[in-house]
């Protein structure tokens, strides 16, 4: 393993009919990257290509200095010879083997004798707090236990690259909370590269050091969680992090949106920018407000939903926008779909950042 470059260096290109995955991806040793995107974006395709369950159409895949797949050079290492571990969405624990033998399966295939493999499996189960469940068959395990056995099975081969496919999706909400915390510990301890595929932004934010947002086969945004949540660049990401997002052309603090509407922001820019603000920054008034807020416009209520302790109001008008109000304020305003209101956003609560 060279300290100079990333552990995983890949450009995944897979053609499947009209769909094309085209995803550059690098992961450093010990780094956890979350591949986040809507259904059908190509997350699972990317994971299968990395695992060797699907060949690349073009591009390359190098792991720990070894070329695993490079169509142009006819290089191909089959799945069973790749230094990888995979936690599948439904875990896919072998139903005929108990927990211990499931975990020992990988080490056994990679050259350990039966005794050594079982010993290593027992160690991993102990680390997962599953020692007393070692003799149980998968169907006798709870969802959370099965998830941990699957993680132990993937880690027991000491993979250079750990792949997790929606590792928490099969769990109920309560179990997910506990399991997520434990998974975080184990991922932090894993010295190799980790790629987490998920459509749940919370999983990605809690577990990953860096996010790669994928839409329609392409990475649309990548970076640390804090950057992405503060400065979304697509509607999908904006929805994920709960921000109103617009694109326009800035001249100083004034931004003219693509449909002609103008907003005043707290940041100064010149050129193409994104403008983002949270729904909580939007205030609603029965009449046109006087005084300070410079961004005011008439709007119509399109929908009302519960959102945590507040109500989230969808507004139509010159721009589509979501606003959060307290139930008390909503009662006072007598909000109902179809009702006209005035919306106001303080310039100081909006952020503008370059689009290019």
């Amino acid at each position, binding site marked *: 393993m060279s300290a100079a470059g990333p552990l995983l260096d890949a450009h995944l290109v897979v053609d499947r009919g009209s769909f094309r995955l085209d995803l550059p991806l690098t992961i450093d040793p010990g780094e956890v990257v979350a591949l986040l995107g809507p259904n059908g974006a190509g997350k699972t395709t990317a994971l299968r290509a990395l*695992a*060797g*369950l699907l060949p690349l159409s073009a591009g390359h895949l190098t792991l720990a200095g070894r070329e695993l797949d490079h169509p142009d050079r006819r290089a191909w290492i*089959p*799945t*069973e*010879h*790749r230094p*990888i*571990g*995979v936690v*599948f969405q*439904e875990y*896919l624990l*072998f*139903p*005929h*083997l108990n927990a211990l033998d499931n975990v020992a*399966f*990988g080490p056994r*295939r*990679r050259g350990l004798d039966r005794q050594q493999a079982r010993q290593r499996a027992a160690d991993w189960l102990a680390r997962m707090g599953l020692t007393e469940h070692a003799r149980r068959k998968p169907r006798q395990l709870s969802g959370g236990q099965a998830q941990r056995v699957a993680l132990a*099975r*993937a880690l027991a*081969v000491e993979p250079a690259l750990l792949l997790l496919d929606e590792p928490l999706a099969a769990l109920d909400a309560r179990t997910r909370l506990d399991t997520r915390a434990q998974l975080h510990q184990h991922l932090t301890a894993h010295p190799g590269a980790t790629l987490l595929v998920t459509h749940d932004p919370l999983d990605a934010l809690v577990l990953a050091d860096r996010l790669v947002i994928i839409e329609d086969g392409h990475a649309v945004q990548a970076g640390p969680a804090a950057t992405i949540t503060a400065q979304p660049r697509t509607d999908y990401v904006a929805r994920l992090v709960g921000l109103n997002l617009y694109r326009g052309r800035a001249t100083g603090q004034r931004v003219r949106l693509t449909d002609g509407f103008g907003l005043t922001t707290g940041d100064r820019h010149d050129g193409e920018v994104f403008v983002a603000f949270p729904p909580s920054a939007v205030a609603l008034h029965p009449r046109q407000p006087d005084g300070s807020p410079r961004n005011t416009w008439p709007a119509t209520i399109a929908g009302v939903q519960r959102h945590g302790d507040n109500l989230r109001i969808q507004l139509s008008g010159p721009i589509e926008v979501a606003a959060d109000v307290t139930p008390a304020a909503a009662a006072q305003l007598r909000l109902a779909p179809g009702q006209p209101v005035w919306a106001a956003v303080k310039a100081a609560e909006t952020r503008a950042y370059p689009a290019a």
Partner: protein
Amino acid sequence: MALLLPAALGLLFLVLPLVGLLVRAPWSTLPQRLTEPAVLTALRLSMQTATLATLLCLALGVPLAWLLARVRFPGRRVVRALVTVPLVLPPVVGGVALLLVFGRRGLVGSWLDATFGITLPFTTTAVVLAEAFVAMPFLIIAVEGALRGADTRYEEAAATLGAGRWTTFTHVTLPLVAPGVAAGAVLCWARALGEFGATITFAGNYPGRTQTMPVAVYLALETDLEAAIVLSLILLTVSVVILASLRDRWTGG
């Protein structure tokens, strides 16, 4: 009601012949007939050859079923059709075909005779071959069905853990489809046990060497009806026991 009557008639039609066997059985002399050396010899030979035929079917049929279920290749439909031919072929025709291939003057048989001095007809090996020929489709169909029903993602999981094709097959795929293989093997064994037409044609009839139970039944029928009934009762009992165990264990009643 319109369906009930033909249904009842259908059941009667299937059950009545078995009742006939029971009614006509020589119950008073049954114990001594059952322990006649000739009966025991035929029974033992039938059990042995059916078991050997089943093992042969497992060794050849499971890989063939895997090929049909998991490997895409041109002409797969044709191969599948060919595999099921012995199901619809009259067993006697199968026996004649076996003679033409493995007989002393057959395509393979003449070579075996000239090269190794081996002739298959009229040997116990011939009985096993005849039984395997007619019984193998039962095994292949059962195993192929089980393989198609099995989740291939487990095989992918095995590959990510470092298992090659063969290890995956033996350590993951086979255990997953074990119930299907077992059910197929039992059906195969039962079919082999009842095999008559191909056996008498290809292997002939000689007590202790090629005279299996069904052949003994047929020959006894010519002269000694009661003996034929006794032999048939034994075969019927074995079949019922096998089918009962099959239903309980593998098809969930």
